[in-house]
Structure formats: structure tokens, C-alpha cells
């Protein structure tokens, strides 16, 4: 989820000739990751940080070609549904000329020297970057391996390598000699690795971008219960650990009485840890009963005391005053003074929990000298260092294995490494020797903070003679990165770019423009949440432009296209594509049905959506969503479609129903009864078109989310309803 372009966009920096400073920043940013956590100590993981410029293409670190002819890809990105197992295997298999049936994938272990994300400089998944940062790398791995296999076969057959061809996993020579990868692999892997293996011409692709050429590698195991998640880990003597954490953010244990808890059969121990009181038991249920029996007095002297209501009134008051300017051009104040039709809108965005289907958890085994941690880890490098530091051992003494995770939506990538620290603290508190599984209940997870930040956008626009002449967007929000190791990477002029991304640059030409920000501290921990700043900036910008276009008497599609001019070809491309797909003929239809549209770029991927809905007593009912996406080269078209479908459903559930309310410093919703999730009966039909593109591939995990909410709001407006000013649209919805 690190995605600030100033740091991570290779192109921007290549243009600015500042590749070096980008490197320096990455080192600084990542080095801080642990430095912040334990001040004054050299980050241990930094010591074996890879040289930033090196790109590992060593086949023997990424591929296991077994004698049985299977090719297993070690995937450096975590698989939690967005498809990197299949994507990485596609890239390798394409260049290797493997047969899809022989491909497998597993997670690479934590090892930044080998498996760093080329955009981050450390190992981690986020910012919809998995395919983007691996497209060439994994193809080169496949191409290098192919060349090594061919060279081995040439030697064995005593023929020229140039006379050998490879097709569907079979190595062939015109003489009729042929063999399979498994027969040559052991020898081939010992050969020198070609420095710059020849890549295929995209015109010759058989798998990349070919619909139906591959199937997900993880579908079968996820359809018969055999896929192993962290919650499923088990070992003899393993204890399940639950932690009682402070109900209020910022509260700490003052004192506790574990007498009753220890009397519960199956409870083995109770220990205080920095985040609360940990109960160690033989299985989940005794741990739960033990935790329920704890008596804890909390010290709330440093806890957050405000609730959503108080925070909202503070934010609202601030929104009426100009913040610190993020970006401006023209003279917007003068423009407003000239008169015309002045339009104002204030949008309020709630705290949102990620509520991934598998709550947070982790497995750890520490023997005093070495440790093994296994869990659905999204940022291995910082987590790895944190575990080592808590246990007081070197990173080389800690093995961190990445497991499948039941969703994340950002939650498992932690700038503060808080869950990794807690996992290690739990091991430290009871002492070496016991395998432990730390489990968060749904309530722990949902009330555990690290939410999509609460925020307000106050929009003002002026329309004169059918033209949008001025635009201001005053944002009030909490920084995701402030005080975390990543602050250096996303802060510019003291402002967190993840708070305003998408609002500072809009794809529409408006002569007089200002975006400003009030960055406010709140004691509620916040985090990136599937599409980060675009979760709210996408809504604010796209709902407001639609409102202004309406005031200007223009069609939502035509009006947008006109304002894009010739400068936004990819925005315009997806907008035109979705209009065509939906057969757009204006927003109003018969029988109470209306349509709305929105287009948002996030993570260098462009997505436009048209929704069709009608209103019921329970709120909007979505019938269909049309979606056009431009993500550069489409590596796995069906996974792209799946991510658009999922992104649409995820966005819809939240825009309609979801809100984590805070009361006096404590989060209210603990489960899906109060934090309502989208269900199948609320899921619209979805039709996706992938816009053909030769641009470098970009991600699809997040970009399907942002346009949905504003498209719904814009459709509702066509029924004469106000575009929802405060989300969720159906407040107080319970399941």
C-alpha cells in the first residue's frame, strides 16, 4: 500500500533524473521502520537489506523444478485472493514455455535480499504493486531458466542450443530427441545464470493476456477445505493465546486479577503483555473462557476520550476554514467573488474496519535462540526485524514464513508492525519452548483500530454560463503515516499525501483550483484500506464533478469527456469504454431505474463504472454495474475481472452500510451484526471490459473500489435525491 508516487513511481523519478534520491529515500524510509519502534538501535533488518538497484532473477531462488516435472514458483507477494500465485506463475510459464498443468506456487519466505518488492526496496505486498513490480523480473526468471534447460539439453544431446525448441513443457530437437524439464533441471540449475535473458515479443504470448489460457492455482485447495491458513496451524503442545486489550484506544493495563481465569480447565497461563493481558490455553474455547473471566482495571489516563460525534463537529468546524494548500492554480477566490452559481457540498466519511474474513492471528515458536513465525504476513521485512528485536535475537535467527491469508484489504500490512510485535511479546512473556498461536476474535479484529480514517471534504464550485470556473476541496483528515516509519516516504511539506491523493489532481480542466488540507491528530489508530486515500477522494471528486456538471446542464459522460480534453487519454478511454458497454444514453431510464457514472485513477490503473439502481425502502438497490479497466498489459484477464467484481462488492457494502462508530474513545461495532457486510442478495450483476493496452501492467487489487460509491451517489441524484453527504448511505444498518 505504499504508493506515493513521489517515492515509488520509477517513471516520475527517471524523468526528474533523481533515481538516486528515490533510492536514498527508500533506504531512509525502510531503515526507520525499526528505528522508530526501538529507538536508538540500528534496525537489524537494515543490515541485510539488499542493494536497491539489484534485481534478482536467479531461477534457483524463484523456481523449484522437480523430477516429477512440476514447476513451483516461490511467490514473493502474499496470496490473499488477489491472485499473485497465478499471476507470477503465468509470467514464469510464459517465458519458460511450460505447460500450465505443471505450474504450482508457494510463498517465498522472508528474505529481502532475494524477494524484495522492487518498488519498495523491502519485501512486501501493497499498493496494487505485485504484478507491476514483477512483470519483467518474473519473466526474466522464466526466460533464464528456459535458457539453462536448453543449454543442458544441448550438451546432453550434443546438438546446438539454437536447434532446440521448447513447447508446453517439452524440450525438442529436430532429430526427434525430446525430454521434459524434470530430466534436466538439477543439472540446469547449476549452470551460470544468463545476465540478460531474451524475453518474448508480446505478440508471441501464449498465456499472458490470453483469456482462458490459465486457471487459478489455488482454486482447488480453496474449494475442498485443504488450503491452510494461519488459524489452521497446529502442533503438539501448541497453546492458543487470546489477549484482552483495552476497550478504549490508548488505554493500558493498570492491574488485573487472573484467579478465576486460571481456574478454567484448559487455561495454562496468564501473562501481562504491552497490549493487555494474554491468556494461554489448550485450544480456542478455554482461552476465550479464560479471557472472559479476567478482571482488569484499565488506566485510561492517556486514552482517546472523544467519540465520532465530537470528532465530526471538530472536523466540520475546521472544514469551514482553509487548510494548508496542497495544490492550486488560477485564482479561485477571485473567481468565486465574481458570482455565478455557487455550489457547496460537504462529505463525511466514517471510520471503516477492514474486517477481512480471517481475523488477525499468528503462529510463533521460540526456543530462546531461534524463532519461527508463520502467518499471513504482508510486509515481511519490517515484521521480521520487529520479531527479532522483541526477542533480542538476530534477524538471521528468525525464520518468517508467509501463509495464505483470509483477506487483508490493507490490514495485514502494518506501518507500525504492531501485530508482529505483539506476537513476539506473547512468546517473550511466557518464555521459550512453547509453540503458540495468537488468535484475534472477530470482535478483537473489528474493535482493534487501524481503520480507514474518518474524514470530511468540503467542496465548493462555481458554474457560470454553463462552465465550471472554480473548484475548492478542503479536506479534514487524520494522517495514516504520521509518526510511523513510513512518514518520510509519503510526507510532503508536512502533509501526508495518502490523505489527499486523488483530490490534489483531478482529471478535469478547471481554470481556478485549490485543494487544501487540515491534518488532524486523533487517538484512533488508522491504516490504509483497500485503495487508501481514493476511498474518500474518489467519492468527493466524482460526486462533486457530477453535481457541477448537472448545474452546468451537461451529460455526466459527455461533460466529463469535454473537461478531460486531450490530456487524459486513459481516463477518457475507460469512460468511453464503459459508456459503450452500458449503452449509455443518459442517466434516466424508465420504471424508476437510474444510472450514475464515475471514473477514478488509482495506483496508475484507470477504472470507470456505470451503475444502474432503483430506490427501495431499505435504500438503493443495485441492479447492474458496468466496469471498464485499463491496467496496462492485462496479464490474467479473468483475475482482473474477478478483482473488479470483488472491488465493486467490497465498495458497495461499505458505501451502503458500514461504519465503525467511536464512543468515548471506544469502538462500538464488534461483529457483522453491527458492521453490516454486503451479502449475495445485494450483489449486482457485473460486466467488465478490459481496455486493450500496451502500457506496463499496473495493479487491480484496489482500483475497482473507488468509482463505485460516487457512481451510486450520482445515480441517486437522478431520482431527485441529494447525493449522500454522510456515509454510509443507509445509516444505522444492522444485519
Amino acid at each position: 500500500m505504499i504508493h506515493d508516487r513521489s517515492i515509488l513511481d520509477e517513471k516520475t523519478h527517471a524523468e526528474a533524473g533523481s533515481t538516486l534520491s528515490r533510492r536514498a529515500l527508500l533506504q531512509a524510509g525502510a531503515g526507520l521502520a525499526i528505528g522508530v519502534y526501538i529507538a536508538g538501535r540500528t534496525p537489524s533488518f537494515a543490515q541485510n537489506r539488499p542493494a536497491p538497484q539489484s534485481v534478482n532473477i536467479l531461477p534457483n531462488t524463484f523456481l523449484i523444478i522437480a523430477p516429477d516435472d512440476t514447476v513451483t514458483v516461490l511467490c514473493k507477494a502474499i496470496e490473499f485472493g488477489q491472485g499473485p500465485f497465478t499471476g507470477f506463475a503465468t509470467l514464469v510459464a510464459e517465458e519458460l514455455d511450460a505447460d500450465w498443468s505443471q505450474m504450482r506456487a508457494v510463498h517465498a519466505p522472508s528474505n529481502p535480499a532475494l524477494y524484495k518488492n522492487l518498488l519498495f526496496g523491502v519485501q512486501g505486498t501493497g499498493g496494487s504493486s505485485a504484478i507491476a513490480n514483477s512483470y519483467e523480473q518474473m519473466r526474466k526468471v522464466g526466460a533464464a531458466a528456459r535458457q539453462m534447460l536448453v543449454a543442458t539439453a544441448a550438451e546432453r544431446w550434443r546438438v546446438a542450443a539454437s536447434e532446440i525448441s521448447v513447447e508446453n513443457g517439452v524440450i525438442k530437437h529436430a532429430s526427434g530427441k525430446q525430454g521434459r524439464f524434470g530430466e534436466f533441471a538439477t543439472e540446469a540449475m547449476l549452470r551460470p545464470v544468463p545476465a540478460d535473458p531474451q524475453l518474448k515479443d508480446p505478440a508471441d504470448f501464449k498465456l499472458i493476456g490470453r483469456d482462458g489460457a490459465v486457471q487459478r492455482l489455488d482454486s482447488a485447495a480453496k474449494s475442498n477445505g485443504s488450503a491452510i491458513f494461519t488459524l489452521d496451524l497446529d502442533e503438539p503442545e501448541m497453546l492458543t493465546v487470546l489477549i484482552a486489550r483495552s476497550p478504549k484506544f490508548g488505554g493500558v493495563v493498570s492491574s488485573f486479577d487472573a484467579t478465576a481465569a486460571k481456574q478454567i480447565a484448559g487455561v495454562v497461563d496468564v501473562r501481562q503483555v504491552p497490549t493487555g493481558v494474554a491468556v494461554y490455553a489448550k485450544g480456542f474455547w478455554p482461552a476465550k473462557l479464560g479471557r472472559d473471566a479476567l478482571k482488569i482495571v484499565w488506566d485510561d489516563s492517556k486514552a482517546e476520550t472523544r467519540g465520532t460525534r465530537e470528532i465530526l463537529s471538530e472536523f466540520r468546524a475546521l472544514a469551514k476554514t482553509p487548510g494548508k494548500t496542497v495544490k492550486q492554480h488560477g485564482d479561485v477566490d477571485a473567481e468565486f467573488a465574481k458570482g455565478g452559481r455557487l455550489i457547496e457540498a460537504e462529505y463525511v466519511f466514517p471510520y471503516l474496519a477492514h474486517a477481512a474474513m480471517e481475523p488477525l492471528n499468528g503462529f510463533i515458536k521460540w526456543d530462546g535462540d531461534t524463532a519461527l513465525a508463520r502467518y499471513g504476513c504482508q510486509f515481511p521485512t519490517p515484521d521480521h526485524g520487529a520479531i527479532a528485536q522483541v526477542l533480542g535475537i538476530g534477524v538471521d535467527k528468525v525464520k518468517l514464513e508467509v501463509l495464505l491469508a483470509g483477506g487483508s484489504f490493507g490490514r495485514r500490512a502494518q506501518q507500525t508492525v504492531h501485530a508482529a510485535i505483539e506476537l513476539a511479546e506473547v512468546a517473550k512473556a511466557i518464555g521459550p519452548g512453547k509453540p503458540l498461536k495468537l488468535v484475534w476474535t472477530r470482535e478483537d479484529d473489528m474493535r482493534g483500530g487501524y481503520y480507514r480514517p474518518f474524514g470530511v471534504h468540503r467542496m465548493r464550485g462555481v458554474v457560470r454560463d454553463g462552465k465550471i470556473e472554480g473548484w475548492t476541496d478542503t479536506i479534514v483528515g487524520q494522517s495514516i503515516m504520521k509518526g510511523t516509519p513510513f512518514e518520510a516516504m509519503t510526507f510532503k511539506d508536512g502533509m501526508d499525501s495518502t490523505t489527499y491523493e486523488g483530490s490534489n489532481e483531478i482529471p478535469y480542466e478547471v481554470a481556478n483550483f485549490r485543494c487544501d488540507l487540515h491534518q488532524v491528530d486523533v487517538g484512533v489508530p488508522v491504516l490504509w484500506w483497500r485503495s487508501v486515500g481514493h476511498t474518500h477522494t474518489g467519492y468527493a471528486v466524482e460526486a462533486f464533478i457530477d453535481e457541477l456538471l448537472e448545474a452546468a446542464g451537461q451529460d455526466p459522460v459527455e461533460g466529463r469527456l469535454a473537461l478531460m480534453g486531450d490530456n487524459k487519454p486513459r481516463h477518457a478511454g475507460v469512460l468511453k469504454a464503459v459508456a459503450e458497454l452500458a449503452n449509455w444514453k443518459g442517466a434516466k431510464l424508465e420504471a424508476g431505474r437510474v444510472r450514475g457514472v464515475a471514473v477514478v485513477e488509482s495506483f496508475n490503473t484507470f477504472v470507470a463504472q456505470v451503475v444502474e439502481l432503483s430506490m427501495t425502502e431499505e435504500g438503493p438497490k443495485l441492479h447492474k454495474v458496468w466496469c471498464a479497466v485499463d491496467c496496462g498489459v492485462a496479464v490474467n484477464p479473468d483475475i482482473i475481472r474477478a478483482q473488479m467484481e470483488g472491488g465493486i462488492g467490497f465498495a458497495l457494502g461499505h458505501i451502503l452500510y458500514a461504519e465503525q462508530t467511536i464512543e468515548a474513545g471506544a469502538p462500538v461495532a464488534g461483529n457483522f451484526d453491527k458492521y453490516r457486510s454486503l451479502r449475495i442478495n445485494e450483489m449486482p450483476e457485473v460486466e467488465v471490459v478490459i481496455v486493450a493496452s500496451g502500457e506496463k501492467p499496473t495493479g487491480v487489487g484496489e482500483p475497482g473500489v473507488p468509482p463505485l460509491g460516487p457512481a451510486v451517489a450520482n445515480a441517486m441524484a437522478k431520482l431527485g435525491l441529494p447525493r449522500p453527504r454522510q456515509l454510509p448511505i443507509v445509516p444505522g444498518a444492522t444485519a
Partner: protein
Amino acid sequence: MTAYRLNINGQSHAIDVDPGTPLLWAIRDGAKLTGTKYGCGVAQCGACTVYLDNQPVRSCSLPVSAVGDSQITTIEGVGGREAAAVQAEWVKLDVPQCGYCQSGQIMSAAALLARNPKPSDRDIDLAMAGNICRCATYVRIRAAIHGAAKTLEG
């Protein structure tokens, strides 16, 4: 602690737990069958769906003391034409994303087809609304159930 004998997937498992222990945890921590998932613990999400005498139930909200001699079926033991058709279609359409909810989805879907071999969209809504998928794979779940129904038609 009380000793129970649970009949899971045709096998008898001896389990010694507190009588209030939800069947889910008896299956997972006791019988060591981990295909059945924990998602909410309060009968909201369906991740823990198993069959009790062939009827889908939320195992997180059923105390082990209430199970008696009933036959329990989990994703590991689910068999029969409906489940096979559902699982095949799930793979064919690449339904799962993170996959964590899918054991429960498949148990609910197979149970639906067993009592209604040709469900309408509305039947699917009614039968599947208790199973949350946070990845929102609902479009494909629906398509896969229709696909499985077709297979079963022969």
C-alpha cells in the same frame, strides 16, 4: 470438562471439552479438522457451516452438548453428487479469492442443490444470504450454483 463422542464424517472422535464449547471448536481443536472456518462466532457469516444430519448449521453457535448422536459432515467429508458438482464448478469458474469463506459457501450451496436441484436467483439469495464473502465473490458463487445445477440435470 465432559467427554463426548462426535460422529464426524463417519468417524467417531473422542473429545473432552466444556459442554458449552461450540461445535466449531470441537471440530477444529478437538477433531483437528480445519476446513471449517471461524469468521464471526455469532451465526452471522456462515464460514463455520457444517451439516448436522445433512442439514446445514452454524457450528459456531451450537454447543457440543446439543449435538448428541447426530451425524456431522464437514467440508472434508462432504460427498455426493451435489457437492461434487458444486466443487467442480467452483474450480472451473475460479470462484475463490482469499478462499477463507469458501468451505462454508460450498456447504450451503451443496445443501441448497440437494433440496432444490434447479434454484432460481431468488432461491440462491435466500439460501446463501447467511454466508458472507468479504472478497465479494458473489457473482461467481451465483454463476457456479447455476452451473452445478446444469451439471446435475445431466
